[in-house]
């Protein structure tokens, strides 16, 4: 029991002394994970959409060649970055660029390097998630969109992607959580994330275990908060479970002076007064006060 008391004391001591360093680390980790996940998602979306451009026999040969080439390039990108450790990729890119360009190209800003590496990595994972999200959508949705004359881009933009995005939100969350944790390998190129701070701090005082406990608790808190927020986002994207019937003659509205559904007109079913009237009608079968 006194071991735990000792641990608690050490943790309090560490925290009070190095609070600012820990906070700075947390902030850097969150910022890097968030930005990189965002950029990674964009890369993944692009790859996923480009990967699913249909290629029929009626297309000109040049277009078909480019589409095939594009698929091969994306495939190679995904396989290479998914199949090698991120810690190695960061060393490879961070030191590789100056090596080949005789120092003409190098990362003056550690942030650029870190964001680049983590985004590219996330992108590789997301590309597959997005592809999965797109092919999980019923082909009937695509046919429905095509049947009213939408082009591939329009179909993707307005019909498929909104649904695919909803389906891959858990994947995005997964990637964000992985990024929060895995950005810790960025210490290898000198990025001061949360875990790097731990290394500095224990280098000074050798309190390995108490500091690690602090890190464990903080990382867990960060990821739990992230999954909670993502659940909220999912709920919000699903929209309301109920809908309200429009009980006035819809045709009169469209033909009349109102552009339907204008807010704050008596016809607007979002309108408070109207909603109250509907509620009372449903509840009592008449307006309160009506005889």
């Amino acid at each position: 029991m006194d071991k735990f008391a000792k641990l608690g004391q050490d943790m309090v001591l560490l925290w009070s002394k190095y609070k600012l360093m820990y906070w700075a680390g947390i902030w850097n980790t969150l910022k890097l994970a968030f930005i990189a996940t965002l950029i990674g998602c964009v890369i993944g979306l692009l790859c996923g959409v480009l990967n699913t451009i249909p290629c029929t026999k009626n297309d000109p040969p040049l277009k078909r060649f480019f589409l095939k080439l594009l698929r091969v390039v994306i495939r190679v990108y995904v396989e290479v970055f998914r199949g090698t450790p991120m810690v190695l990729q960061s060393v490879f890119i961070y030191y590789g660029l100056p090596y080949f360009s005789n120092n003409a190209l190098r990362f003056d800003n550690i942030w650029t390097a870190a964001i680049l590496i983590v985004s590219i990595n996330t992108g590789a994972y997301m590309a597959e998630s997005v592809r999965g999200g797109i092919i999980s959508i019923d082909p009937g949705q695509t046919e429905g969109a095509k049947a009213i004359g939408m082009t591939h881009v329009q179909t993707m933009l307005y019909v498929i992607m909104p649904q695919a995005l909803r389906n891959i939100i858990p994947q995005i969350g997964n990637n964000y959580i992985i990024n929060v944790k895995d950005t810790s390998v960025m210490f290898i190129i000198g990025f001061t994330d949360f875990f790097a701070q731990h290394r500095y701090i224990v280098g000074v005082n050798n309190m390995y275990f108490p500091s690690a406990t602090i890190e464990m608790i903080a990382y867990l808190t960060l990821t739990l908060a992230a999954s909670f927020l993502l659940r909220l986002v999912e709920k919000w994207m699903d929209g309301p479970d109920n809908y309200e019937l429009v009980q006035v003659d819809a045709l009169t509205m469209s033909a009349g002076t109102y552009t339907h559904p204008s807010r704050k007109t008596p016809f607007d079913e979002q309108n408070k007064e109207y909603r109250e009237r509907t509620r009372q009608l449903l509840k009592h079968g008449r307006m309160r006060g009506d005889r």
Partner: protein
Amino acid sequence: MSEHILEIRHLGKAFGAHEVLRDIDFTVDAGDVISIIGASGSGKSTLLRCINLLETPTSGEILYHGTNVAGRGVSAAKYRSRVGMVFQSFNLFNNMTVLENCMVGQRKVLGRGKAEAQAQAVAYLNKVGMAPYIYAKPRQLSGGQKQRVAIARALAMEPEVLLFDEPTSALDPEMVGEVLAVMQALANDGMTMLVVTHEMAFARDVSSRAVFMHEGVICEQGAPAALFGDPQRQETRDFLARFRSA
């Protein structure tokens, strides 16, 4: 011969070595209501999907006002915006409300303004009796309601021809009636329609021409009264007899 809206010439479709459609020839003129009947697997749906270019025909031509749309260098999207389609499985956009379903094509494909698209959508939804449900999502509707919205969505594009691919086959018996009523009203309004159906009563009473397909070819076609009353081919007789006994 460009007075025909659609002219199908020697259309053929094969999936690998399996020939689903062979040498299909027929024309669609304004105001026609053509029912395509036949056993499952006779190629009815494939024919309809070829006409809308959802399947690429392997041979033959589809002339739309005299232009072959099955060839290269023709914008399939533009052609499809003039030829509406209603599917067996509705295919409403799940991420949009009923109103948005009927607006998105008008806005993005036809480039109409929001107010105009909305008025148009509500007008057609009213026609199919779905106007009260404009804020509902497809998942909240019954099959018959979904199909009526799907019809409104197709109508909102103001197509020249409307293709129906077994519009009532996925519906419970009590919902078939409401969809057929809408289709009958459209036929009475002079809409040009091509209907693949198993509803023999609809084919006989509403359509202006009936086409019987058997094993990938048009076996017999003509006025519904003649086709149903006095079928010339043995295959047609067998097919209709099965429906009468059922």
